[in-house]
């Protein structure tokens, strides 16, 4: 697979994945761009791997984890709420819940956030997440459990504010 083939097949999904990880399209673009410049430089090796897409995705994950160490947190992207999927029966409540979730996701510790994204966005198993993050499945379950508790609390708080 050439690098151009890879871009044609995977660039859009990498940008979507990075956007969900970072909660920030601008930061997502920076991360994907930095990763792809490095991947392009080593493509003679990466392109011969069985799963180059998985390797580059892991580069994005690792870049996100280290990126977050170098930079201050981005502002919680409330502006993204308007662009979410069309709400259903009670638009106000759903949007409020999503806003609370987005704010909560953006505040999660980076490994918890990555674990949540890999589980709920990518549909990965505990084992797959453990491999991606370089930790045990027990740690994965702990990350997700704590993250979900935090996010549920964020929704609960939002609901109480509207009573």
């Amino acid at each position: 697979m050439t690098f151009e083939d890879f871009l044609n097949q995977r660039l859009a999904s990498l940008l979507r994945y990075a956007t969900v990880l970072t909660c920030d399209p601008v930061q997502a673009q920076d991360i994907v761009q930095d990763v792809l410049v490095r991947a392009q430089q080593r493509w003679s090796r990466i392109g011969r791997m069985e799963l180059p897409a998985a390797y580059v995705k892991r580069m994005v994950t690792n870049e996100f984890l280290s990126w977050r160490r170098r930079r201050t947190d981005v502002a919680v992207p409330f502006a993204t709420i308007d662009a979410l999927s069309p709400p259903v029966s009670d638009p106000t409540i759903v949007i409020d819940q999503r806003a609370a979730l987005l704010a909560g996701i953006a505040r999660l510790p980076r490994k918890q956030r990555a674990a949540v994204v890999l589980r709920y966005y990518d549909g990965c198993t505990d084992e797959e997440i453990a491999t991606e993050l370089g930790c045990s499945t027990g740690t994965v379950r702990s990350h997700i459990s704590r993250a979900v508790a935090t996010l549920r609390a964020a929704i609960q708080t939002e609901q109480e504010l509207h009573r």
Partner: protein
Amino acid sequence: MSTDFDHLLRDTLHGLAERAPDESAVRAALGRRRRPAFALIAVAASVLLVAVTIPLLRVGGPADLPPAGFTQVAAQEVTFPMEVTWLPPGLTEQGRGVSAGGTALSRHWHTGPLDADGMPDLTLHAMRPPLSPSTVWESVDLGANGTGFYAEEEDRRILIWNTPEWAYQLDSRSGFAGRETIVRVAAGVRPGRTTPLRTSLEFGDSALVAPSVATYGVRGSATGAPIPYAIGQPSSDGYSRTISAELTEVEPDIGEVELEVTVRGQPARFATHRPTDPMTPTETLAVDMGGRWLVVRNYAEAPDLGRLSTLVHVAETMRIAPTAPNEWIGTR
């Protein structure tokens, strides 16, 4: 509650994904920062398929018998067609490699012996012309060698130029030499005949390692004994990796040994490694050949104990000649 929450979380994340930036911005940025080597790699790969231009002579003799476990074959001798008349102080030649068929040649200079995965301070490649720069390359005057094209990457600087017979590419590790030094080296490259590279290690099973794209060479070592090496790409579609082999007097540190096996009738150790980048191996097999070690390394995405059989087969079928002199090692 759990199901509702899970659905809401999934919907929120997928909705967030819809905010992803347009890929055209990344493509444009990649275009501006395109790695010059990308184009060159494609060119270098294509030249490997061109007909042989460098004669391969047979040397070696019965007086220099190989130790047990070695397959008796003759070393191959390759004379390089270019001389370098000026080098920065402190550099000595520490490695040479040649593609199967002799259509691509490399000379490596370094301030000391090269590691197996180390990047030389300076490398001169010669291959079939022409090499074509992309628009991001800077045009430079190389005197008698005409016009060259210069580019900088994250970890190296590159200069290319063409002659009727050969296209040249000079690579310098970033942090070693600047633009002026590289240009001066390139301007001093002249046609000539070097003392020969004598290789003594070859892949023996063309069904496993594609012979047309293999590279053979020798590098210096801290002990002074030359280390012959071979680098190839496995032929099988299901095993599209890079694989290397070398013969060294220095016992390799392969980390925690996971399996001990017998290869070529000799004791061997096998270990897997989790790669930190694509330049580190995922599996290593080290065969104790009695005073020398045959080390086979595989470079994959993730370690796999199941690749032991493949590495054993590569080691079993390597063709090894008696060590031949390579007088150029350590000289300028």
